[in-house]
């Protein structure tokens, strides 16, 4: 019995030394998000962004003279898989992590990164408590949180458009419903308008005619929708078919080329919030063209944010001079970095400063920034 | 001779399916110690009659009364099959309905279910009482297997038994519920003459040793005539004759029912 015990101790010791003793000759950038399953469209662009950034940086000598190695893990946006993914990344020695994509998965995974002292930056997790609760000091994001967007959307509806009756809809998802709930709260707080309808629609349903009829019945003047572009296009198409003319205001999940392409003319005149116009930022054009040469198509959702996050993380390591957690976090919070979403640094809660938000309107098939 | 004690008394049983009257006011008694038989050509309504008595169907009309010895009379109409079995009336099936993927022994053990009582929690804890009960179930079941001559196959899957053995296993399983009346639905079907002869003995043994009354549906006339008295004959849902084997053999209505009209032969 004693012998077995001794053997075990020896085994653990050897393994412990083996894993801990590796000299870190690369910088390891973990990438986590849905790369398979129905939510893959939201994860793959960020993953490709990371690949592009790393390729470019490695070609020019890497970070701190070391090559950057990518550790890519699929979390399918599921919390339970995300914890596995996170553990895997941590044990593989990821120095920083780009991800996760969905807020739920991010929340589930953050505890593990926190314990392992790994800074995490999400290009897409917009759930406010992620930064506002203070529970996750290692969390950063290159996208604005839902409440900021909701506030902007509501202000726009009430002050610019001057509507009094607003219908608020969402897709029952964590992102959409979060946005919608904030919107409702802000509308009620403003006292200038009322929420005449607050409901969730079923994603994937064949039509939304009932809900469109309801908007008409309740005489709403504007519709605030929280969710993603597939449902948004169905909604605006349905509204157009049914000749319902109310202002359609939505979020960043809808500000996607697919929305305009799918909804076509029905999308005309729709408003949505999104990061301020990036086309003037040189890096944005560069990133997009890199993607186009590599993959031949337009980049998808969260590509710019993913690209920015990868740049910001690697830049922070470079600035910090090491992969030490405190140094990297400090660099993220103090040093500005130029990214496709602007020149940014992060506040002490983890939200990016310098990521501006604007309201856009679809005009002739393009998103036009409203100043 | 003193009046025999009636165990099962069926009065005017009628069963309709939609417009079809499958059983038409049939009355029948089974007394203590009897081996009664219910015969008749295919489609005469015998199995439907069984199903009514054992609670699988609820009869349209009529009374099914059970007179257990020393207990109150029970009316079986509309009771669920498991309640009927609990009252001491067990059956076998025409198209063998064994639990194919369970062992022979387990099949019989299932029969003990309604006579034992350990529940979920006690089974989990597996207290002494439960273990004793289990052992008792095994022993009773094993004895029954020995009685029907299947003890050697106790750990085989039921589906792997030969046909005749499966029929006997059904009988053993029914016996395990401690019935005082056993309903056998074509126990000899598909058996070869030797198996039938063994079955003949088995049924007599059950009747004599275990003092279980038996009501059987059977097509094998040799078997029926050998062992049963009285015999009831059904045709087109109606009872057309009853009596001793000899009476039945000589009854022209019965012969006609079986061999067809003979008037101009």
């Amino acid at each position: 019995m004693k012998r077995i015990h001794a053997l075990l101790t020896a085994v653990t010791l050897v393994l412990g030394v083996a894993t801990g003793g590796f000299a870190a000759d690369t910088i390891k950038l973990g990438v986590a998000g849905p790369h398979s399953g129905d939510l893959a469209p939201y994860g793959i662009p960020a993953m490709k962004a990371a690949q592009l950034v790393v390729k470019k940086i490695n070609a020019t000598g890497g970070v701190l003279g070391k090559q950057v190695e990518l550790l890519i893990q699929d979390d399918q946006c599921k919390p339970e898989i995300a914890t596995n993914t996170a553990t895997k990344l941590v044990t593989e020695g990821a120095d920083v992590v780009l991800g996760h994509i969905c807020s739920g998965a991010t929340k589930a995974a953050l505890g593990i990164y926190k314990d392992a002292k790994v800074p995490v930056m999400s290009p897409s997790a917009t759930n406010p408590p992620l930064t506002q609760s203070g529970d996750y000091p290692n969390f950063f994001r290159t996208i604005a949180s839902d409440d900021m967007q909701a506030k902007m959307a509501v202000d726009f509806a009430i002050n610019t458009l001057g509507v009094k009756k607003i219908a608020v809809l969402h897709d029952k998802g964590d992102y959409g419903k979060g946005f919608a709930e904030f919107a409702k709260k802000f509308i009620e707080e403003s006292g200038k308008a009322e929420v005449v309808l607050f409901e969730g629609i079923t994603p994937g349903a064949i039509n939304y005619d009932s809900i469109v009829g309801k908007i008409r019945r309740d005489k709403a003047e504007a519709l605030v929708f929280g969710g993603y572009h597939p449902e948004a296009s169905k909604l605006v198409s349905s509204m157009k078919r049914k000749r319902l003319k109310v202002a359609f205001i939505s979020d960043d999940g809808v500000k996607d080329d697919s929305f305009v392409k799918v909804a076509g003319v029905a999308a005309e005149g729709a408003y949505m919030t999104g990061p301020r116009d990036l086309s003037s930022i040189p890096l944005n054009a560069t990133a997009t063209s890199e993607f186009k040469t590599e993959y031949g198509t337009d980049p998808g959702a969260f590509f710019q944010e993913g690209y920015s996050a990868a740049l910001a993380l690697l830049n922070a390591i470079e600035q910090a001079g090491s992969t030490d957690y405190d140094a990297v976090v400090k660099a993220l919070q103090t040093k500005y970095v130029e990214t496709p979403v602007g020149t940014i640094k992060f506040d002490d809660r983890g939200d990016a400063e310098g990521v501006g938000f604007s309201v856009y309107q679809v005009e002739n098939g393009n998103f036009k920034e409203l100043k | 001779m003193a009046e025999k004690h009636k165990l099962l008394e069926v009065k005017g049983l009628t069963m309709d399916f939609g417009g079809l009257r499958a059983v038409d006011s049939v009355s029948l008694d089974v007394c203590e110690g009897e081996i009664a038989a219910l015969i008749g050509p295919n489609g005469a309504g015998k199995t439907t009659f069984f199903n009514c008595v054992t609670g699988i169907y609820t009869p349209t009309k009529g009374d099914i009364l059970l007179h257990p010895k020393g207990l109150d009379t029970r009316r079986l109409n509309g009771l669920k099959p498991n309640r009927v079995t609990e009252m001491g009336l067990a059956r076998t099936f025409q198209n063998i309905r064994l639990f194919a993927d369970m062992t022979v022994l387990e099949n019989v053990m299932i029969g003990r279910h309604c006579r034992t009582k350990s529940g979920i929690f006690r089974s989990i804890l597996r207290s002494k009482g439960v273990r004793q009960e289990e052992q008792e179930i095994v022993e009773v079941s094993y004895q029954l297997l020995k009685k029907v001559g299947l003890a050697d196959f106790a750990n085989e899957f039921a589906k792997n038994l030969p046909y005749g053995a499966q029929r006997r296993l059904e009988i053993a399983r029914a016996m395990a519920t401690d019935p005082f009346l056993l309903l056998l639905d074509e126990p000899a079907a598909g058996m070869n003459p030797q198996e039938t002869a063994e079955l003949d003995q088995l049924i007599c043994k059950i009747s004599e040793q275990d003092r279980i009354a038996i009501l059987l549906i059977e097509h094998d006339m040799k078997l029926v005539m050998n062992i049963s008295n009285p015999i009831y004959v059904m045709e087109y849902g109606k009872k057309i004759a009853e009596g001793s084997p000899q009476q039945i053999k000589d009854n022209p209505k019965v012969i006609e029912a079986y061999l067809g009209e003979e008037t101009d032969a």
Partner: protein
Amino acid sequence: MDYFLELFLGGLTRGSIYALIALGYTMVYGIIQLINFAHGEIYMIGAFVALIVAGICTIYGFAGISVLVLAAIAAIIYASAYGYTLEKIAYRPLRGAPRLSQLISAIGMSIFLQNYVLLAQTPDFLPFPSLIPEFAFMEPVAHIVGSSELVILMTTVITMILLTLLIKKTKIGKAMRATQQDMSMARLVGINVDRIISLTFVIGSALAAIGGVLVASYIGQVNFYIGFLAGVKAFTAAVLGGIGSVPGAVLGGLVLGWTESFAAGYVSSDYEDVFAFGLLVLILILRPAGLLGKARKQKV
């Protein structure tokens, strides 16, 4: 009143799509008592093939209703071919196996086909070219029904009439009914039952493809995942109407469509699905064989 009509028509549109897909479930179930779980994926493949054909045409400069017809034909051919192959590969070797094995095989096939399309094509939502000419009705009719709804309703009605004629009047349709009612008797009159089963899959798949094309052009987008929800809903519709019964599938589809539409309109769309499935549970408890289904009597 026009709110009611609007909901009614919205439900009708939805319901007719459900009915088209439900027919495939019900016909297959009627013959071999198998829940063809991959049927939703056949619908999705139909929509995808239509998208590919319509996409190529529009990119090379063709448009209009004739492209839609061409796309629909391609969708029907391919969905049928997939349905046929599906039966050959995943179900025929399991004929006579326990129901559960068949169901698992069906679920496996569903997962496989979904991921096959995901990998072979793209996970993104792709826009389906708008090919149905828009024409406007006068108000207030316009906000109750539009041209796309009309196309869906008309196509569904025509398809249903054709299907009914096929089943009622043609020799092959009668053979299908015969097989459904008594398979071994059907063999005894000389019907090649295997062929009839294949044919059932082909017809069911073709109907699903029609549904797929209609939905794709109606909502204007397609991706690899649309089959799942549509499949589950259509299956619910089939069970609701009485699985195995063709008119039952149509009725079930419509009832489900209306339930969802009215639930969303008069109660809340939050709980649309709860109403749909709640109705199913309720009906099965009251009428275990579904609205028009026949209880199969078990022989004892």
